[in-house]
């Protein structure tokens, strides 16, 4: 079978090359310029899919984005599978492989179709709400069966080999759609020098001009379109984006465009210069003005069996004939409500095939096209409509009768016509979708018999998107809009001479949505409204009967417009039918909400390059490459990669951490602490500011001294902590938690800028500038003395002091602060020198047993000392007093610091608050689970009264025992009491409440 429906000439395809493709395993040929749909029609393929609910055979209906049926699975390999591709928008390429998404064993003969026929009656809308309820336990089984029928195409099961990307662009005027309206508007705007972007979703720009009967300047209007595109391409400030769909229109004129860069070439993107290129690209456009030139969709007429293959949109018939050189049948019956639909019959006739009749709902049609049809001798049946199609796998006839629309009934005898194709046009629906995305409801126009775009600031609809249809008016409208849009952005347009247009004049159309049937709607053969979701006129009638009176209810009860086409063909008809059933007007009924996407967009394209290695930044310290070389395992802390522990050989984490811990307690360890937030604070009021923002006191901290501070929110809950050092009278260096760094800087700015602008103080981040290396352990001083000129004498450089000097020949600030309880020096150098200093210290590795350690060891060591980690031992509901840190609260500070007032709120005064304590498992071998819940009485029944939970828990090699920190109700007064931790495995651990300081409670070791 080879392209039986292909005309020998005409159309915009390239007959000099042949493309091979396969559909459902059969090989076919087509031509460059074809879509998959035109190629299938050329080859006489009728059934392209089975419907979702009733498994009815379905064929191609439309020629563009509005197609509901021809939804196929594409892809020649597993990884290249693409579900739910609309054949009408898929360019044909060599080797294209596609298949129907539904139908078993195949789309021609579908067993489910039989079920659909038999069971269809049992499946009115919402049938599942009314059944499958007994027995209750069976629902999950029923659901499994229901799910078997779900879905159209399938997801690939291998990872996508392709990449996608984004471009952010700004322009003065964005023109969406490149039909005559879009092109003319873009020309008018472009010639003014404004920055213009014009996009069109089709393979070729020109829109309706590519299959038009009109003439521009006496020629095929496609020539005018080509010239317009060429002129636009030549303009410096104009960006022309073919194959690009405006898929979402967001606030303040932000529009997302989806550019298909390679989908017309293959199912995986070919490379350029040996490099992968993006399969698709999203353009994020911020436009000064938007011109909506998206055209109008032909509206099918709703009649019985209107879903059988061979039922098509009149406009699609024209498009296939004129643009693709394909006549999708032999004998045509056209049912229409308007002159424009006549094009289908004329084109059909001119293609040399039989037009059985034109059935016109109007009593006296008389436009130019009507006359042309009459002149050609085509039979025209007026005041009538096709009310039922015949045939099961392909149309075999049409039943026609006079109709009385006012009373919604047939008004005369029935005539059966023999045909294989029924084309219908019920009028045009302007493409208002994008305008609706920002919340503007479409507005009904009686004159246009359709909804027009609602008002959006900075947006102008032009051409058929606002129901201006005659080509000369479209062009005039667009030129005016393009020039005004440019002017609104400050660009004067020189004005454009309008081309000469020759087009047919049209008579008025009439409103035709659902055609009445001999039988009432509920009893007539199915009259489909939404073909993809198998929603029929009867379903809508039933919904309204059951009380679903809002069109939104109708949508949700019947699934009308829920499909991948979002009801582009069906919605307006559905609304009209609902209006009829409810005895309302269409504007009273209204539309449902159009939302992005205009047409579906792959997740990959929306994600862009922010995936895999680039999903989220990985932040590295200056020493990262050393850690890697040393075999560190990393922990994610915020976006940072921090060494977690440094295993040697096959060492387990437990062993590595125990070794690292002992090294610190016995010799000396080193930690890369560069990720700590660091904020340089300067100004004469810096000290006052610290006093307001921290819970504790700062007025007496001397130069060169450091102090630990807690920060609360004004609700009194701890939010961050860290050590702040007084570098000079008006100069402090604050440290924050790793995760808190950015937030705390903003927090300081917030209070400064909004509440206390009178304080003279500046905050600047120096987190990345200073690398911080913590050496800690009894031999820290000896080690450091090898590489520094700073006087490390214990009386000259005391605990909680800071010194400046050289370390390994590098200027450094060294702080004697300790998070381990051991003698500690934190060496800070400009980060470019970090590696040099670190390596200098490691020259003495063997001599002192210097051991690198990671966050896990840091946690064990600090927990042994009872030092908290904000975010681990606190959770946003813990006050400084709950932590037992009264020593860190300036109760009598003159300024009521942030969090102060909360001390006296009723809830913070409660004495049964959860308080931080230590927990000693009775069995020292037990390491309690972090997150384990604590009870007083292990023998209660469930639900048990829980009194707290474990926040931190480790094995301590120095204690040779497990130990933990926990928040326990009233814990501070319960030292020595026993508590219980009932675990998931059925065991219950017993532990004693103890002080959270497990090691060196006097703090002697850090003071040596």
């Amino acid at each position, binding site marked *: 079978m080879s392209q039986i429906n292909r005309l020998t000439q005409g159309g915009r395809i390239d007959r000099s090359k042949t493309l091979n493709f396969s559909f459902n395993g059969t090989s076919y040929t087509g031509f460059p310029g074809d879509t998959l749909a035109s190629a299938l029609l050329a080859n006489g393929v009728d059934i392209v899919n089975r419907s979702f609910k009733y498994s009815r055979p379905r064929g191609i209906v439309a020629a563009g984005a509005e197609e509901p049926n021809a939804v196929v699975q594409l892809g020649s390999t597993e990884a290249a*599978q*693409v579900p*739910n591709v609309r054949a009408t928008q898929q360019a044909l390429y060599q080797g294209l492989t596609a298949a129907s998404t539904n139908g078993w064993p195949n789309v021609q003969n579908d067993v489910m179709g039989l079920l659909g026929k038999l069971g269809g009656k*049992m499946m*009115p809308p919402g*049938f*599942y*709400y*009314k*059944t499958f*309820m*007994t027995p209750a336990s069976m*629902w*999950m089984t029923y659901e499994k069966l229901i*799910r078997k029928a779900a*879905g*159209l*195409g*399938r*997801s690939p099961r*291998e990872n*996508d080999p392709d990449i996608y990307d984004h471009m952010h662009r700004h322009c003065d005027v964005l023109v969406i759609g490149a039909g005559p309206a879009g092109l003319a508007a873009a020309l008018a705007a472009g010639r003014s020098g404004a920055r213009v972007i014009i996009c069109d979703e089709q393979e070729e720009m020109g829109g309706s001009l590519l299959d038009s009967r009109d003439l521009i300047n006496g020629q095929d209007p496609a020539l005018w379109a080509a010239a317009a595109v060429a002129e636009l391409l030549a303009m410096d400030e104009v960006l022309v984006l073919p194959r690009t769909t405006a898929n*979402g229109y*967001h606030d303040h004129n932000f529009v997302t465009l989806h550019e298909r860069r390679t989908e017309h070439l293959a199912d995986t993107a070919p490379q350029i210069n040996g490099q992968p290129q993006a399969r698709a690209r999203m353009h*994020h456009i911020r436009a000064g003005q938007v011109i909506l030139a998206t055209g109008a969709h032909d509206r099918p007429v709703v009649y019985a069996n209107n879903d059988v293959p061979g039922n098509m949109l009149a406009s699609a018939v024209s498009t296939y004939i004129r643009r693709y050189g394909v006549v999708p049948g032999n004998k045509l019956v056209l049912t229409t409500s308007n002159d424009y639909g006549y094009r289908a019959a004329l084109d059909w006739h001119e293609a040399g095939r039989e037009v059985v009749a034109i059935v016109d709902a109007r009593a006296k049609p008389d436009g130019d096209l009507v006359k042309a049809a009459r002149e050609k001798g085509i039979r025209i049946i007026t005041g009538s409509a096709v009310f039922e199609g015949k045939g099961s796998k392909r149309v075999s006839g049409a039943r026609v009768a006079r109709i009385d629309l006012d009373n919604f009934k047939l008004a005369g005898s029935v005539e059966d016509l023999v045909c294989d194709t029924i084309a219908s046009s019920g009028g045009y629906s302007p493409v208002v979708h994008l305008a609706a995305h*920002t919340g503007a409801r479409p507005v009904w126009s009686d004159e246009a018999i359709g909804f027009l775009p609602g008002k959006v600031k900075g947006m102008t609809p032009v051409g058929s998107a606002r129901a201006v249809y005659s080509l000369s008016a479209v062009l005039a409208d667009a030129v005016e809009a393009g020039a005004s849009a440019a002017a609104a952005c400050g660009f004067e347009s020189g004005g454009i001479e309008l081309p000469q247009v020759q087009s047919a004049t049209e008579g008025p159309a009439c409103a035709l949505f659902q055609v009445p049937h001999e039988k009432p709607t*509920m009893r007539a053969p199915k009259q489909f409204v939404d073909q993809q979701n198998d929603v029929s006129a009867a379903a809508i009638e*039933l919904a309204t009967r059951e*009380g679903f*009176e*809002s069109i*939104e*209810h109708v949508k949700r*009860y019947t699934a009308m417009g829920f499909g991948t086409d*979002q009801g582009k063909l069906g919605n307006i008809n559905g609304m009209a039918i609902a209006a009829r059933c409810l005895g309302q007007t269409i504007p009273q009924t209204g539309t449902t909400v159009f939302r992005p996407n205009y047409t*579906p*967009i792959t*997740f990959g394209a*929306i*994600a*862009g390059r922010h*995936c*895999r*290695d680039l*999903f989220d930044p990985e932040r590295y310290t200056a020493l990262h490459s050393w850690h890697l070389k040393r075999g560190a395992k990393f922990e*994610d802390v915020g976006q940072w990669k921090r060494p977690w522990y440094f295993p040697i050989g096959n060492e387990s984490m437990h062993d590595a951490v125990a070794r690292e811990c002992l090294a610190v307690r016995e010799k000396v360890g080193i930690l890369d602490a560069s990720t700590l937030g660091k904020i340089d604070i300067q100004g004469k009021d810096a000290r006052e500011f610290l006093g307001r923002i921290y819970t504790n006191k700062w007025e007496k901290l001397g130069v060169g001294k450091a102090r630990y501070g807690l920060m609360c929110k004004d609700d009194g809950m701890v939010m961050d902590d860290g050590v702040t050092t007084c570098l000079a009278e008006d100069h402090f260096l604050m440290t924050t938690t790793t995760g808190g760094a950015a937030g705390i800087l903003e927090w300081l700015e917030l209070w400064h800028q909004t509440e206390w602008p009178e304080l003279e103080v500046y905050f600047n981040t120096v987190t990345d500038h200073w690398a911080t290396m913590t050496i800690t352990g009894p031999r820290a001083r000896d080690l450091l003395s090898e590489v520094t000129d700073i006087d490390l004498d214990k009386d000259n450089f005391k605990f909680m002091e800071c010194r400046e000097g050289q370390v390994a020949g590098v200027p450094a600030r060294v702080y004697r602060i300790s998070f381990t309880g051991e003698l500690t020096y934190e060496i800070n150098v400009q980060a470019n020198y970090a590696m040099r200093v670190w390596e200098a210290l490691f020259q003495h590795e063997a001599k002192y047993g210097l051991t690198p350690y990671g966050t896990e060891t840091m946690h064990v060591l600090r927990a042994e000392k009872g030092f908290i980690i904000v975010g681990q031992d606190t*959770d946003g*509901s813990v006050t400084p007093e709950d932590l037992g840190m009264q020593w860190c609260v300036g109760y009598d500070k003159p300024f009521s610091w942030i969090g102060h007032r*909360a001390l006296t*709120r*009723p*809830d913070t005064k409660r004495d049964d608050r959860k308080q931080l304590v230590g927990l000693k498992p009775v069995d020292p071998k037990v390491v309690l689970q*972090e*997150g384990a*819940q604590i*009870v007083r009485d292990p023998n209660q029944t*469930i*639900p*048990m009264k*829980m009194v707290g939970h474990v926040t931190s828990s480790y094995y301590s090699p120095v204690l040779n025992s497990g130990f933990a920190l926990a928040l326990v109700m009233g814990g501070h007064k319960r030292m020595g009491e026993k508590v219980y931790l009932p675990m998931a495995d059925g065991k219950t651990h017993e532990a004693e409440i103890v002080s959270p300081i497990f090691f060196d409670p006097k703090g002697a070791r850090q003071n040596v």
Partner: protein
Amino acid sequence: MQRYSGFGLAKHALTHHENWQRMWRNPTPKKQYDAIIVGGGGHGLATAYYLAKEHGMTNIAVIEKGWLGGGNTARNTTIVRSNYLWDEAAHLYEHAMKLWEGLSQDLNYNVMFSQRGVLNLGHTLQDMRDIQRRVNANRLNGIDGEVLDAKQVSEIVPMLDCSANTRYPVLGASWQPRAGVARHDAVAWGFARGADSLGVDLLQQTEVTGMRIEDGQIIGVETNRGFIGSTRVGCVAAGNSSVLAKMAGIKLPLESHPLQALVSEPIKPILDTVVMSNHVHGYISQSDKGDLVIGAGIDGYNGYGQRGSYPTVEHTLQAIVEMFPVFSRVRMNRQWGGIVDTCPDACPILSATKVKGLFFNCGWGTGGFKATPGSGNVFAWTLAKGYAHPLAAPFSIDRFHTGQLIDEHGAAGVAH
């Protein structure tokens, strides 16, 4: 009420479905009701249903400015679970869970409550601590749950990338087998039909525009269809609660923010459970129709537009592709937004107010769908008796003045 069953369906098929009755009436408002519920979402309708069913109050009305179930009930990702951290919240949500388990039968309306299990993934050590803490608490509160490691997770969801070379590898998850999803519209319709059949007037297209208060006592509401009297009014208006409160001269600790969701095109079943990740920030399940239902993030600014910002959706899909790289070629069909009423502690408000007879049920924020039957049930009790149901008592507005918050923020998995 016409009872629904498979047999009934067959019977109606014989008469071409021409004899189905309305699911609810479209009554004209009475002058006076014993109680008025403002807001015909799932919570409001459930409140009315239980008021009528369990407290015998049938001279009541639900006043809805749009269509029933058209607010957040129509736009949520339908995740139902009860594994909340704090006792107060856990008990309330578990109360709801128990009602869910018999809801279809109780309402004689299949709400398609599908207990397919919910996974909350952990990607950092702190995530895992939080998960342990929550699951331990759940267990001792009698709520099902387990902590799984990455391998067990990957057995449940083979399509999920559980390998070590992702940016934030999956370390484990909490797993609540009884959790799942439900058909959101059916929940509203089922409660509506149930309430209507007990005599409740469901007044749609009726907007409350003012509150009439005399001597500190509510005496009725002004609407676009005139004044409707009642000395007991419960406001269950989600994102619009602050607007109603203002009519009564009350301020609430709420902010209304856009929260978005999106669906893919329908694809053949590939994901049979619910996967949530707070850390990479994406939530996903697959509906019985085949679309992937995906919860996006909340926008930081106030908004009543039922739409949010594009980058939010972008970030969500990046997270989904990170978790499920095989979905890269699946396409997003539709995105939308709801207006969620967020509370500072991520817990609801079920409370009397300083206006006598005026009660609020709000603040459910990003996660109230799961509570629908429970919320309605305890709120009905509260409205009927005039004081808080024990499960509702901790959720009074007073907590924002005493400081006794129930901070579910700290607990991983607050959203949805």
